[in-house]
């Protein structure tokens, strides 16, 4: 569905690339997460893929359409939820929806709600019911809560049945309960529409549900795969050990064939052994034993800090 090849973006007057040669693919119907810390190049990537920004080099296709040469076709195929809300504060919820529907050629324009086609009004009613805003649909967007605005944006972006829905940090700035309800709403959308979801986030917990994750930092891909792949590849299980008689310990560990790294305390890689079995096999009296079984979050932080070193 999405094919990105060697994509590079350098902003004018910038000294380094915001996106530095990234490549990845997203399958149809997949829930794909582009994960990375602030400034990693996530928004730049999404802006290029949604044709609002030109790449410096490299390219991408969405459902077979080239993002540069066939920008208009790409725009028809994608829906976007921007990092910052793009609803017009001066308009009502319905007017915002109408504006979108007309811009995408779904319904012809009419100056008032009453004059819009019956199909449109039925759609708006259905949408308002779904969001529980039937009474407020003709009220200015200013009166809506942040979470409700986000939900309205998601519903609006799905009006033209996009093949890919891009969400650029959609939960940034929302409180925890709102994030959760928005998340449930998005899962429901996925279940019912089967749309490919491309999400950028710096919240790891939002990536755990993904089919595949691409972690980028400083414009480069640092890890790619399913959440389990990433855990397996990046999460290192080890025990830190130390002893009063360090030379005896080092000698014994070498004799036992364990791989260690770093100075004292020594990082003893488990390599598939259990902590219990490893400790039982060591005779030298230990005065430090620390087990390390990191979570996906630890792995992510480690990847990011590594790429900053």
């Amino acid at each position, binding site marked *: 569905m999405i094919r990105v090849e060697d994509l590079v973006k350098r*902003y*004018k007057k910038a000294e380094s690339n915001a996106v530095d040669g990234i490549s990845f693919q997203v399958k149809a119907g997949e829930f794909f997460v582009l994960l990375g810390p602030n400034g990693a190049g996530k928004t730049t990537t999404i802006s290029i893929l*949604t*044709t*609002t*920004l*030109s790449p410096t080099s490299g390219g991408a296709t969405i459902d077979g359409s080239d993002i540069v040469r066939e920008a*208009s*076709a790409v*725009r*028809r195929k*994608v829906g*976007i939820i*921007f990092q*910052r*809300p*793009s*609803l*017009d*504060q*001066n*308009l009502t919820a319905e*007017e915002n929806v*109408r*504006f*979108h529907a*007309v*811009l*995408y*050629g779904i319904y*012809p*324009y009419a*100056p008032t709600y009453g004059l819009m086609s019956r199909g449109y009004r039925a759609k708006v009613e259905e949408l308002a019911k779904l969001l529980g805003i039937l009474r407020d649909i003709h009220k200015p967007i200013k009166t809506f809560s942040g979470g409700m605005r986000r939900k309205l944006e998601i519903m609006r972006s799905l009006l033209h049945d996009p093949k890919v829905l891009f969400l650029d940090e959609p939960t940034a700035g929302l409180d925890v309960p709102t994030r959760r309800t928005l998340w449930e709403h998005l899962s429901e959308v996925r279940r019912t529409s089967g749309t490919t979801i491309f999400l950028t986030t710096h919240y790891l917990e939002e990536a755990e549900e993904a089919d595949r994750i691409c972690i980028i930092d400083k414009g480069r891909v640092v890890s790619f795969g399913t959440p389990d792949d990433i855990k397996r590849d990046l999460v290192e299980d080890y025990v830190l050990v130390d002893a009063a008689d360090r030379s005896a310990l080092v000698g014994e560990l070498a004799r036992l064939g364990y791989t260690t790294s770093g100075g004292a305390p020594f990082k003893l890689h488990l390599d598939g052994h259990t902590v219990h079995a490893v400790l039982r096999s060591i005779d030298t009296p230990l005065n430090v034993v620390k087990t390390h079984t990191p979570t996906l979050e630890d792995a992510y932080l480690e990847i990011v800090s590594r790429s900053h070193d």
Partner: protein
Amino acid sequence: MIEASAILAIAHRDFIKLLRDRARIVTSFAFPLIFIGILGSSLQSGFGERAGTNLLVFVFTGVLGMTIWQSTAQGIISLIADREEDFSQEIFVSPINRYSIILGKILGESLVALPQALGIIAFGFILQIPIGPDQLARMALALVVIALFGGAFGVIVLANLGSQRAAQQIFPFIFLPQYFLAGLFNPIANLPLPLDILSKISPMRYAVDLMRDAYYSTTAERVQLFDAGTNLAIIGAMFVVFMVVGTFLFVRAERNR
């Protein structure tokens, strides 16, 4: 059909915004009324009567043309504000043609300028400026042309500006000199050569002159510099250049950041 619908929707949005912004409606009348009411009236009482010409009418026609032209131009430049408020993203990721976006915006800002024109003309009646029905009809047609022309000028300015702040800083340099080069309050028939050249390349001059021609062509007085045909030809040429070059540069600048 889709494009036409989208143009109307974009235009409609601008008009709705105006109707819901009462402060903007009030302030949009302030400057023209000060210019006409205070400057026009005082020029007339100070010099006009002695010179045997009606300077109040001269200022009125000039300010009417200028206000509509400048209002649409500034309205177009508000696309920058849309960008900073992130609303333009919604427009720019939609599949409609970039020229349709600009055209819709120009149409919308022209709609926004017209109530302003009605207010100024009503003020003219209060000041007892004689306006006959045929003059009024001609002025109405001129207003439409001037509004669209102002919009096109806005596009070329917009294409060369990076931010709302830059726009606000540059406004006095873009509009203020043209007040004098277009002869809003002052005669420009016999300018020294350098000023004459600057005047002739000032787009506002042709908007103002078109409005004056619409008013004065049926009177004995002749203050307009060109006839309507010449003004329309120059405005038409400038409109096409501003639109094509401006939209191209604007869209390129939007994507090549």
